[in-house]
């Protein structure tokens, strides 16, 4: 463990930094962006098996590079959580939100000089559609019935039913625009994009090198001359690299050691409350979880405050058994927060006709770091309500294929989604592939469809608030907490207000940040 005593020099440095902070809004926060410099980042999630194929994108350096620097999407999520046109110049929905027309920027070229046209957009989207795709965005694009070009610079999406949030869908990290081949399929192998950087070297699992394009179509983005992304999966090694100045930026700071990293005078911790949350789905079509009173008893038997304090060490906020975060637009602010209440848990058990309850809970740190501790904490608190939780520790390896969606009560993790509709459709709608609680609430499913095609925000708000309540009171998922995104940087790099949809400025830090050196 790195133990840093406060010696005289460090004390002076720290006080000097405090004085600076007091004088300015924040170190490196408001200074003017300028061209030049090198960005070196240490990122987690890189693996030798990384591929440039957008169908396989998950978190990690390849997505930071491809989605955040080498390519563009039709839209992007800004710091306020809105979907803004990116490669699209304008976006027009029809009155029923079923037909969406994206007009593309003219004069955008790929880094090999080829002009970007609607054919490239269509090829890029079709890569994730159809019977033979392996894409993680396949279910997301099921809603699209047809994509057609209207000239070289306009693409029309026909949806199966109206979706007012479709521009958010276009910002999904799988849906980067890459060039089309002659036969209409997408060319991902060459790694070409319309973004501000060119992929100069990619050694999977080791590093990615990017160089800036001088002819980038955005004038207020892509400041660094060169970017080097080192793949550092070990969180201690990542923090060492930052502390010793080997890199300027790291993602996913371990909550256990944030306070130690904070002591370095040139290091700034970046913490945003985002949409990432931890869940505990239970199969609502299987005894004993098919009884809503059993579910409520379990939901009352968990001490969320304590869990946030112990598992997240305060770097997060309590969940209210629905997946919508304060960062989302229609978050139900006035919905009463559920708290730990063993008496209420006992009351619900009694209502279910039980005096005690035995449940098996599958857990593993593959679900999220701390899932095993969370399970043990839950076992402790639930026992006060007469619930006996049998914690089963599953192997990390293969957790997502063998435990999640297979065991009736387990832990899971969701990065969250920028819109309510997306999050609900993905995991809580009847028949969704990832409905990990097998939850089927008629009223909820009706509201989901109605809200999706509604373009009036006030009406949507009312519907989404009711859905959050239904999720909380009837849903099959305990959502104990939301975890903050914690990254860190040295004072050599500057940035604007951070987006809250993902780590490192919505995975867009390469394009958005600049050098302060």
């Amino acid at each position, binding site marked *: 463990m790195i133990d840093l005593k406060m010696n005289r020099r460090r004390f002076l440095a720290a006080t000097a930094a405090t004085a600076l902070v007091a004088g300015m809004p924040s170190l490196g926060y408001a200074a003017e962006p300028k061209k030049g410099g090198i960005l070196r980042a240490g990122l987690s999630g890189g693996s030798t098996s990384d591929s440039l*194929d957008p169908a396989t994108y998950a978190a990690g350096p390849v997505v930071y590079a491809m989605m955040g620097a080498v390519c563009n999407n039709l839209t992007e999520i800004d710091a306020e959580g809105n979907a803004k046109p990116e490669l699209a110049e304008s976006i027009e929905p029809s009155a029923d939100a079923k037909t969406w027309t994206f007009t593309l920027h003219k004069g955008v070229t790929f880094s090999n000089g080829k002009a970007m046209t609607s054919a490239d957009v269509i090829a890029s989207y079709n890569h994730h559609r159809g019977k033979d795709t392996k894409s993680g965005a396949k279910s997301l694009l099921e809603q699209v019935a047809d994509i057609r070009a209207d000239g070289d610079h306009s693409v029309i999406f026909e949806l199966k039913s109206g979706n007012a949030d479709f521009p958010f869908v276009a910002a999904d990290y799988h849906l980067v625009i890459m060039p089309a081949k002659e036969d209409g399929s997408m060319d991902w192998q060459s790694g070409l994009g319309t973004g501000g950087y060119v992929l100069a070297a990619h050694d999977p699992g080791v590093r990615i090198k990017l160089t800036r394009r001088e002819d980038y179509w955005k004038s207020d983005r892509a400041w660094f001359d060169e970017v080097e992304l080192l793949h550092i999966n070990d969180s201690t*090694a990542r923090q060492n690299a930052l502390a010793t100045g080997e890199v300027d930026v790291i993602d996913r700071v371990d909550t256990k050691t944030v306070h130690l990293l904070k002591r370095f005078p040139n290091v700034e911790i970046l913490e945003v409350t985002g949409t990432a949350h931890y869940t505990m789905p239970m199969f609502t079509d299987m005894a004993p979880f098919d009884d809503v009173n059993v579910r409520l008893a379990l939901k009352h038997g968990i001490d969320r405050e304590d869990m946030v304090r112990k598992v997240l060490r305060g770097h997060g906020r309590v969940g209210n058994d629905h997946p919508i975060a304060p960062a989302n637009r229609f978050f139900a602010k006035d919905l009463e927060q559920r708290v730990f209440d063993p008496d209420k848990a006992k009351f619900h058990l009694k209502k279910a006709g039980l005096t005690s309850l035995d449940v098996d809970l599958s857990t593993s740190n593959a679900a999220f770091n701390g899932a095993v501790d969370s399970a043990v904490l839950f076992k402790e608190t639930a026992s006060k309500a007469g619930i006996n939780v049998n914690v089963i520790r599953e192997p990390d390896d293969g957790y997502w294929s063998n435990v999640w969606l297979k065991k009736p009560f387990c832990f899971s993790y969701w990065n969250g989604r920028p819109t309510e509709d997306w999050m609900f459709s993905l995991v809580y709608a009847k028949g969704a592939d990832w409905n990990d609680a097998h939850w089927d609430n008629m009223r909820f499913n009706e509201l989901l469809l109605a809200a999706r095609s509604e373009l009036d925000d006030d009406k949507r708000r009312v519907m989404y608030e009711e859905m959050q309540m239904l999720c909380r009171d009837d849903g099959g998922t305990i959502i104990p907490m939301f975890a903050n995104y914690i990254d860190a940087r040295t004072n050599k790099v500057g940035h604007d207000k951070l987006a809250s949809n993902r780590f490192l400025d919505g995975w867009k830090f390469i394009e958005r940040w600049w050098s302060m050196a």
Partner: protein
Amino acid sequence: MSQFARAEKAEASVRKGGRDMHPLAKMVLQRLGLGLVTLFVVSIIIFSAVELLPGDIAQQILGQAATPETVAAFRAELGLDRPPVERYFDWLAGAMIGDFGQSLANQREISSLIGGRFANTLFLAGYAAMIAIPLSVILGLLAALYRNSFFDRFINMVTLSSISFPEFFVAYILIVFLAVRGQVFPAISSLNEDMSLLDMLYRAFLPALTLTLVVTAHMMRMTRAAIINLLASPYIEMARLKGMSQARVIVKHALPNALAPIINVIALNLAYLVTGVVLVEVVFVYPGLGQLLVDSVANRDITVVQASCLIFAGVYILLNLLADILSIATNPRLMHRK
């Protein structure tokens, strides 16, 4: 013995040795043949072991985002829907002609994927060996020479302590003192192809030092024990009675006879340096073959696992063979077996 007689005798032994080299060459060929059989068996074991692991590459890569349809599409694309036996023999046919195929995960050529990593692993192993082998042999000799002295005990204590700590712990301790506080060496050793040799040696110093600390005790203790063991022999006593100094007795008379066990333990440690350094690679973010293997096993990327394991197995077989050859070569009694 006159100088002339000695020279004649040496010449005769060379001539005789030349005629008798045949059995040694035969042994090398035999061992290489057996090595190939071993590699074949290893490949079967690795293939079945990876097959037995739960889940396959399609599920691993898609992870939480997997649905039955996308997994099926992924499998069909990679040809994983074919029976395992067929896939194994397909791979074997390719491997026979030197074509290890492509990584299932990202369709890169295995040879290019592994080539650079293996070179890095060899570089680090070689670097550590250059420090560790002379260091431990000399320390071992000195320890035998000053047996049971304060020096002997001190060396034993230090090397045994460093081998007793897990290597990642040693690595972190070195990082704290030499990278974070001292700021002498970099905390991570990411190498790339545009670095000069000097740069590479500088950046890889901490991992090499970690490995040195981990392997020194074994080789040092073996050298010490082998020599002390011989010091009780009558011919050593003879040498002493002639009035030779202790140092000369050890270096001239004991060491040549102790070489066989020392060479064996060095070979074993060299093999460890090549194949067993995953933890050190992780801590120092060193792009070696071990990390590649761990990644590939986690992803069930069977073609990469096969190729890396065969390289590791090959390294073991060759180093053991080399150790045997050298032991025989340094021991005339073994060379002139009747």
